[in-house]
Structure formats: C-alpha cells, structure tokens
C-alpha cells in the first residue's frame, strides 16, 4: 500500500528543460521566486504566468500534473483570498453587514492567489524536471563556497542522496513490519486517535532498530569501497554547462530585468 507514494515526483522525459544543468535550474527557480515577489501589477504577473506556461510546454508537463500539485493548497489559497478581500482598505464596492469588500481588496486577493499558485507551480517545475540525484548534485555544487565557513557541504549532500536511496527500501520494510504485526493481531484502524498513535509504536521501534543496523552496515560497505569523505572525490557525471544553459541564464536575467523595469513603472 505504501508503495504507491510517489516521492520527488520526477517525471523522466527527454526535453531541453530536463537536460538543463541542475545548477542553472536551481538558480532560475530562485530568480523566478524573487521576480514573483517583485511583481506589482497585471503586466508583471502576465510575464510570470507566461514564463510558467512556456516552461511547462517546453518540459512537456501536462497541466493536469501541475494542478494536482496545487490541490492540497486549495484551503490555504481560499483563506488567503478571503482575508485579502476583507482587510484591504479603500473604496467599498460591496457591503454586507460589517464586511466591506473593496476594489483594491479584490485586486489584492486576485494577485495573492495568482502569486501562491505561480510560486507552487514554479517550484514544481524544478522537481518535475530534475531527478533527485541531479538536484542534490546541483545543491552541492552551488553550496560549495559555504565550505569555506566550515559548512560540511559534501557530507550534507551525501546524507541527502543516501536518504533518497533508502526511502523505497524503508517503505518496503515498513510494509513488512505492518503485515507482521497484523498477523499477530495488531489493530491499526480502530479506536480514538491516542489509541491509533499508540498502535504505531510496534511499527516504529523495529523500523528504527533496522534502520540503525542498515546504517552501520552501509557505513562499513562504503569504507570498504574506499570512501573517505569528499576530499579528492571525482564524479561519473560531472556537471557541465552547455549553450542551452547559457540561453536559460540569459532568459532568466531578462525576466528579472523585465520585472524590475515593470515595477519601476508600477506595472
């Protein structure tokens, strides 16, 4: 049952967006978020929307997949919209009892909803088009300067990639433990919330014990394969920049510049 969980949500397709260097994609995502927060009026938002639409098209992602990602946020989006509508000052267009809805409020709500949706879609574009390994590699490369102030960048990246590697293994193990406990009469589906939480203990304890044992064995196997930290380590897939990456950086810079200019005109 747990096997159905999709993690990382990476859709492996061969498109120009998928082939972009992960460092470039990470930087572009940050640029996009900054630009989105600089956006002030319809024209800048239109630019942001155009960016998301174009990238989605290039990456051949079905719009449905993006909307699916938005689903869990519906309540937050709705509440934000209502609060923005009610608490923005200005000329009321509609008054119901004590609630005043203003024209500015309507605009603010619409922009806020658009902003949240674009923000989520923009970051999903990154995870949909970049495999977790590439993402980790990209982060490691970008954070490398932090190593100068003693941040263990390589170790963090290694931890993250091992965690990703063991997610399916541990999910499978959890399934097994659940079945084993059910076979001994454990009941996970009845009683109040406290009882159900307590029923999880016999799953978590063996899972943790086994995770620690795995970690111990993995550490030994890694040492046997000459792992001695990030020093002097090379990679099978070296990250390398291509002309498409330059084009992407140029596009990102243009969008950021465009937003700044539009903002200065209040557009």
């Amino acid at each position, binding site marked *: 049952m747990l096997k159905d969980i999709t993690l990382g949500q990476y859709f492996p397709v061969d498109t120009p967006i998928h082939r972009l260097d992960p460092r470039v994609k990470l930087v572009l995502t940050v640029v996009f978020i900054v630009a989105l927060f600089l956006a002030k009026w319809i024209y800048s938002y239109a630019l942001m929307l155009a960016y998301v639409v174009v990238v989605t098209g290039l990456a051949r992602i079905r719009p449905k997949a993006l909307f699916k990602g938005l689903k869990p946020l519906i309540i937050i989006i709705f509440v934000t919209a209502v609060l923005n509508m009610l608490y923005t000052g200005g000329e009321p267009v509609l008054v119901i009892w004590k609630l005043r809805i203003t024209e500015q409020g309507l605009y603010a709500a619409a922009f806020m909803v658009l902003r949240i949706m674009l923000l989520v879609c923009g970051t999903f574009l990154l995870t949909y088009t970049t495999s977790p*390994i590439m993402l980790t590699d990209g982060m490691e490369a970008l954070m490398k300067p932090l190593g100068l102030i003693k941040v263990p960048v390589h170790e963090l990246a290694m931890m993250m*990639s091992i965690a990703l590697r063991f997610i*399916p293994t541990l999910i499978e193990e959890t399934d097994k433990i659940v079945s084993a406990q059910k076979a001994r009469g454990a009941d996970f589906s009845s009683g109040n919330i406290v009882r159900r939480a307590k029923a999880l203990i016999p799953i978590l304890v063996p899972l943790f014990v086994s995770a620690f044992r795995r970690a111990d064995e993995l550490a030994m*196997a890694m040492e046997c394969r000459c792992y*001695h930290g990030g020093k002097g380590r090379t990679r*099978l897939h070296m990250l390398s920049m291509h002309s498409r990456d330059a084009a992407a950086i140029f596009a990102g810079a243009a969008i950021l510049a465009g937003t700044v200019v539009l903002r200065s005109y209040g557009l």
Partner: protein
Amino acid sequence: MDDTIIRTENLHHSYAASEDELEIEVLHGIDLHVKQGSFVGILGHNGSGKSTLAKHFNAVLLPDVGKVWVSGMDTSSEENTLDIRRTVGMVFQNPDNQIVANVVEEDVAFAPENLGYPTEEIRKRVDDALKAVDMYDMRTHAPHLLSGGQKQRIAIAGVIAMRPRCIVLDEPTAMLDPYGRREVIETIRVLNKVFGITVILITHHMGEVTRADRVIVMDEGRVYMDGTPAEIFSQVEKLRSVHLDAPPTVALLYELRKEGLNVPLDALEPEDCAAVIGALIKHKA
C-alpha cells in the same frame, strides 16, 4: 613469497562484550597464506569466527595480536588502509545495505569516484565491471527494483570497479533464493577463472565451494581443517563433529558406503556422483 596475496600470522582478535566486561577472544592465532588467483572457500558454523577473520583481510578490523599482510602491506599501519581496500574488495550479506546510489551505474561508480579517477576512466571501469557481472543492460535501472541476485551482482560490480586483486565475499548468498544464489556463484566463478581475481568465499552452503581450489573449515576461532574440497568433504564424520554437513553428493556416497558398497567419496559434483552411481548400477547388473 611473491604469489601470496594475503598472509596472517598468529592473528588474535577479541570483541568487548560490553563496557567494563571481559573481552571475548574469537580468533585464537590464525596462520594463513592465500595464493594470488586462487579460489578459497571458508566454512564454519555460526560463531566460528569466519566473518571476523574476513574483516581482517581488508583492514576493517585490526589484529589485537599478530599481523596481517595484504600483498606485503601491513594492515595495522593506517597509511596502507586505502591501498589495502582497493587491493581486497569486500562484499557483504545484505545487498540492500551496500548499495549507495539510486541508479545502478552511479552505484558502481562510487568506488572509482572515491579513488578520484577522471570521468572517462570511471566510465570505462563502470562499464567493464557491469559487463563482467552481466548487468550492463540494467545500468540505468533503480537498484531497489532488481531481484536479490541482481542486486548482489551490482554490489560485486561496485567492488570490482576498483580493479581489486582479491575479493572477499561474506555469505553473499545467505539472503538469496536458489536462483539468485546460482547467479551469484556463477558470477564469482567467472571473476576467478576469466579475470584471475583471487576469491575468498565465506559460506555455509557446501555446494558453493565444491569447485574451489582450497577449503578452510573454521571452528571456535581456529583453523580446523584446510585442504582441497575432495580432501575436506570426504571426511564426513569430522565435518559433522563441527556441525557441518557434507555436500549432498558426498552424503549420498557416504550412506552407500555405509551399506558396504565400494564407492569413492570425492565425487563432489552432481555429474561425477551420477557417473559413479551409474557405473555401480551397471556393474551390479
């Protein structure tokens, strides 16, 4: 001696049971020479010290008393550790706990990456290693979707990508089904015969070492028997005294012999055993 890859001399090893408690010695003076290019099986029941011994072969454990040399390098001096580990690779029981990456080829690349080879060299080593274990077609798969036998072959490829002169396998088939076991044993044989890699196979399946060059039986932290498979397995009673069984072929011949039939005990392979029994039936008829 030049053709010795691993040599131990009066090797003792103890584990501390827990803090403040007495140490328990599990290896009591092991003296061994392992010849380069040979296929050595190490047998022994649980707790006989065979896994502990194996971990001394690539400096995962260090001797309390005595010495271990790997192609002339003393395992107890720390500057040798990396060179020793690339000379003697180690494969463990559970394939899941040795695989580091989400993609087969990335995992096989792990060791050469650690050794700091340039990208082209890593690519070549990864491809060669995957071809040697016959998993090249699966190089872009996710390891967790493979069968146990395939995973274990990936783990072996991950070790031979270092181009070691020797690999030590600590019960590599214990968690596999019979089909996966056959796959792995076949792969190990190829590595030994075709690539000339010294193989030290620790197991408690007798059938896996009938074609070895040499079999060592461990008991209570000592070398109990040491010889060719035919020499070792024909001593059925001596094996049983340390809770080991002869391979099914020998066990059958042994029973026939008890019935008063004159059969040799050293027909270890099923084909040889069948031939012996066939000849016997013909003779009787």
